[in-house]
């Protein structure tokens, strides 16, 4: 038993954080540059557990928590999961559909430049084609309109169900998606905590840093507690999945539930710590909050799983 990252895992973690700081700053989440996806692919994060790279979920979760800290594209979660479970089919970026049942339209997140869309269902994953534009019988070309979401870094589109591939009789694929979205939420909670603590050290009122005041200090401490609990459970869940443990579904769900709450509560607290500037569009404090709201809908933890 060892729930601390080993040297190799720390190296992955550090390299990810370093790259993100230089190339994918959180503040830039509202408008990511065109070429970002190609760079992300080149970094290897789209297929860490896919055949060929075969890293474990523990390492992947550590890296995705770092990526989540910088509000990395939502499509990266779907792509990483698809390349593990549909290795021969999924080539290129994969978008993520929120779980809906037929005949409701698919709500697809991060469709820009994606060739397919991944959706989780109880007991399996589906992979749909995602034509960005298509030609109908009369020869008219339709482009799928992309609409904004609350998370400024993520666009969405609506699609009808098409034929799809799915994973069968294997509990692991949907857990993989839930684990990586939990990792994103852990990173998001960390980002809000650090932003708040940084500001509380710098901003002065009444001739002292506002972090001197316990009312603020304790808000920040609670952010640290939530983030630590969620991160620890994420590590445990990743290991449980790696081991194919009988209670892996529970542990991954617990990680997602705590990470979602940490992301949302920390996101909200961060605005309060910033005061007026926290409410502005210009400042970045709203970015983790809005990402947190989006993450609540990605592979949410089912109460039945938590009580099973």
């Amino acid at each position, binding site marked *: 038993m060892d729930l601390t990252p080993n040297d190799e895992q720390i190296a992955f973690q550090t390299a990810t954080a370093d790259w993100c700081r230089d190339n994918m700053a959180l503040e830039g989440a509202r408008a990511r540059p065109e070429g970002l996806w190609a760079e992300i692919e080149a970094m290897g994060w789209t297929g860490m557990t896919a055949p060929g790279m075969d890293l474990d979920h523990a390492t992947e979760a550590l890296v995705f928590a770092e990526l989540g800290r910088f509000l990395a594209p939502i499509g990266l979660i779907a792509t990483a999961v698809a390349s593990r479970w549909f290795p021969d089919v999924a080539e290129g970026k994969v978008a993520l559909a929120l779980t809906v049942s037929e005949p409701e339209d698919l709500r697809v997140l991060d469709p820009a430049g994606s060739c397919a869309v991944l959706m989780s269902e109880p007991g399996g994953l589906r992979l749909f084609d995602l034509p960005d534009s298509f030609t109908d019988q009369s020869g008219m070309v339709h482009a799928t309109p992309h609409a904004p979401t609350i998370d400024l870094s993520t666009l969405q589109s609506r699609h009808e169900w098409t034929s799809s591939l799915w994973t069968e009789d294997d509990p692991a694929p949907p857990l993989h998606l839930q684990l990586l979205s939990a990792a994103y939420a852990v990173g998001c909670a960390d980002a809000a905590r650090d932003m708040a603590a940084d500001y509380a050290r710098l901003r002065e009122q009444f001739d002292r840093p506002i972090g001197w005041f316990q009312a603020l*200090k304790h808000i920040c401490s609670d952010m*640290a*507690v939530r983030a630590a609990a969620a991160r620890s459970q994420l590590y445990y869940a990743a290991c449980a999945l790696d081991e194919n443990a009988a209670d892996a579904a*529970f*542990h991954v769900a617990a990680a997602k539930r705590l990470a979602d709450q940490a992301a949302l509560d920390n996101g909200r607290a961060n605005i309060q710590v910033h005061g007026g500037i926290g409410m502005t569009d210009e400042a970045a404090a709203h970015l983790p909050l809005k990402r947190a709201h989006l993450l609540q809908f990605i592979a949410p933890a089912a109460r039945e799983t938590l009580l099973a």
Partner: protein
Amino acid sequence: MDIGFSPEEMHFREECRDWLHANVPAGKRPLDAADAITFDKAWQRRLFDAGWAGINWPTDYGGRGLSIVQQVIWLEEYAAAHAPWIGANFVGINHGGPTLILNASEEQKAYHLPRILKGEAIWCQGFSEPGAGSDLAGIKTRGRIEGDELVINGSKIWTSFAHVADWQELVLRTEEGSLRHKGLSWVICDMHAPGITVRPIRKMSGQTEFAEVFYDDVRIPLANVVGGLGNGWKVAMSTLSFERGTGFIADQVKQSQEIEELIAAARANGMIKDDRIADQLAQLRAEVAAVRAMTYRNISEVVRTGQPGPEASVIRLFTSELGQRLERMAVLLMGDAIIDFAYGDDNVVGDYLRGFAATIAGGTAQIQRDIIGERLLGLPKSR
């Protein structure tokens, strides 16, 4: 990272389980204070004789010299077997002994550690005073040096198990006129020494488990100072780090038992059909899982680096508040049976009432939040 245990560790777990299965006393820990202490001492002796006391204490002083991971495995099996609460041995085993291992002289260790492990000596903690609670550096109890003795005057309060203790971790001012953290010493105080008066205090639950202690020209040999005269603050901080850190692993492990019992109870009485209750139970179960993950992470940190990470205070705060949420839920699931509570009952309501201590004793939740904000997040010190 992995959550698997080695074959040796798994074998060790089997041994723990088998022994506990055959030896855990069937009855409950007695309610009457005197009987409870006899029970605590006898049980500790039994653990010692069978080799289960001081699993990760050095072998030179009667311990087993095993790893902290094995200590955790033991505690997990201990909770699963519904073995008795450590009771009056809490201070000696969880922080008195560990403080001595780290700071005491050879003579002090050789004399005291085996007695703690065998349940022969009950320890208590004399830190808090009427005027020095959260602000521990406000200690006024003083010791005047006379020859090779300290002559002690003053008083302590909230001293758990003082009325049955043989020894005390006493922190007092040994330098006249010294201020705050300076001039304090950590002393092994003989609770049977002349001049000591213990006045038990009743809790709102009805038990008298703590007391006020008065010192009237109490003479303690200078040889009982631990870690050197004037170094009391540093030694006391190591005591608190054990008390707030590894001392609570047993509680953390017990929570995983408690949540399962609560879910079973809610299923049995049908209250789980209430969506809000089901959701709270689901939430508590996730949080209890996180406590185990945090504990494992902290233990791994100890194994890797030799000391717990700065997040020990985070675990302490999270666990203490979670414990209170669990107790609150247990009371909720009782319905109006809470009305039947009688002073001194040792039941769900008794646990609930005593559970308020979790965010007060050993540093209040507010003080823990200060520590987290200042040490973990680097915010400026408010005090």
